[in-house]
């Protein structure tokens, strides 16, 4: 299924998905269509319209397209474990095995709601959702961080001390051969403030407004678990507040919809560890640097010729936005 224009491959995938699903739920499942939704360098997502015992069954199939990052089957297992610990996720229906001929992929329920953050951050239809989101995100993060390490022992999640993670991010930066003084200044500032205690909790790693499904009453599902790792509980809290995920709604530091104090209170009320606002701020600066490295990576994909794309070229110019945010954070202490 490398492209839906390949009719034979698409038909074959529909049949293979039908066989996998029938076996997973011990029922007659027919897959009627498989439609590509988006494709990245590392994964592709498809809407699957199936019928289970004759009733419509909307699903999502996600497949890894490269060898980089967390295998989809591991991502699916973690998503399943998180769901079992009370985190809102799309229920995982089936995980493909090598013999299924579907590559490294898994099938999950298609959860109703909006995934485009600018829509739910601005739309009048989502006012009630926005009012509920801060507490719901604090609760969801507390539940993620409460997943026992023993429950994920088989997933080989990466991890390290905060200083080790920061050193790895700096090495990534140096690998691009770019000299952006705001980045070096922020790295120096962050490195002096991160601890070296061992990683303590399961972090989602990419918990931000663009990776959530939001319906009329709020958080419906947490998506994209492929950057999950073992780390510091402040890391996810800081990442959610990075200005890039506010989509212009900068007055609302939590993802463009909420206030930090309310997020921390909800997190602690749901059983999360005590939040040190200064440490969360350090992780917000670190997260801003992380987004800066993503901008450099995407621009490098284009400039190196790996993935020629006007979109990736344009993202290279967003580096100056990231630099502006870093300089503002260092000068004023928050955005």
């Amino acid at each position: 299924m490398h492209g839906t224009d390949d009719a034979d491959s698409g038909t074959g995938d529909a049949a293979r998905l039908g066989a996998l699903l029938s076996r997973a739920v011990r029922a007659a499942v027919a897959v009627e269509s498989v439609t590509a939704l988006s494709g990245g360098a590392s994964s592709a997502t498809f809407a699957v319209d199936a019928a289970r015992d004759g009733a419509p069954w909307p699903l999502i199939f996600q497949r890894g397209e490269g060898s980089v990052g967390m295998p989809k089957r591991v991502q699916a297992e973690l998503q399943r474990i998180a769901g079992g610990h009370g985190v809102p996720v799309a229920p995982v229906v089936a995980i493909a095995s090598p013999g299924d001929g579907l590559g490294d992929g898994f099938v999950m329920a298609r959860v109703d709601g909006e995934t485009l953050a600018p829509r739910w951050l601005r739309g009048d239809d989502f006012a009630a959702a926005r009012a509920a989101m801060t507490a719901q995100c604090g609760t969801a993060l507390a539940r993620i961080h409460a997943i026992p390490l023993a429950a994920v022992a088989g997933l080989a999640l990466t991890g390290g001390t905060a200083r080790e993670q920061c050193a790895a991010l700096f090495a990534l930066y140096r690998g691009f051969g770019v000299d952006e003084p705001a980045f070096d200044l922020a790295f120096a500032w962050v490195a002096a403030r991160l601890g070296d205690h061992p990683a303590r909790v399961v972090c989602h790693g990419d918990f931000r407004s663009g990776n959530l499904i939001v319906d009329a009453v709020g958080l419906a599902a947490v998506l994209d678990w492929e950057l999950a790792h073992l780390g510091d509980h402040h890391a996810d809290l800081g990442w959610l507040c990075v200005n890039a995920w506010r989509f212009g709604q900068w007055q609302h530091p939590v993802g463009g919809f909420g206030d930090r104090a309310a997020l921390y209170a909800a997190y602690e009320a749901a059983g999360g560890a005590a939040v040190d606002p200064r440490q969360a701020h350090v992780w917000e600066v670190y997260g801003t640097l992380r987004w800066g490295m993503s901008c450099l990576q995407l621009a490098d994909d284009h400039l190196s010729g790996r993935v020629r794309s006007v979109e990736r070229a344009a993202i290279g110019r967003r580096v100056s936005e990231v630099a502006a945010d870093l300089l503002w954070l260092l000068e004023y202490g928050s955005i």
Partner: protein
Amino acid sequence: MAGHPDAAALVAAVRDFLGGLKLDGRDAFHAKVAGNVLAIVERELVARPDAAAAAALAPIVPDDGKEEEDVPSLRTQICTALRDGSLGPATPGLLDALVAANLAALAVDNPRYSTFLRRAAAAPQR
């Protein structure tokens, strides 16, 4: 010269052409991104942000006797000094210089960005 469109006029013509295309889905999205890219090019042709950035960064760089250094060289020297610790978050004037250079870049790259607008609003107090 009348009848001889300059580079900015040519780029603007292409941007207008892209804006008039009737496209769907990913093509429409990429055409919009391409139009935004051409707007950056138009602003850069007019603003010459490197001159402003060089003026802001030059006083921060330790004097090596050379004159009239370009922006990439200045940035490399500042980054090298930040990496070896001879410049740092506590260096007087460093943050202001980086902000000034950044504002020149953002005025070209995205003058609608929230932090740019907030800086611009705060400028009289600086």
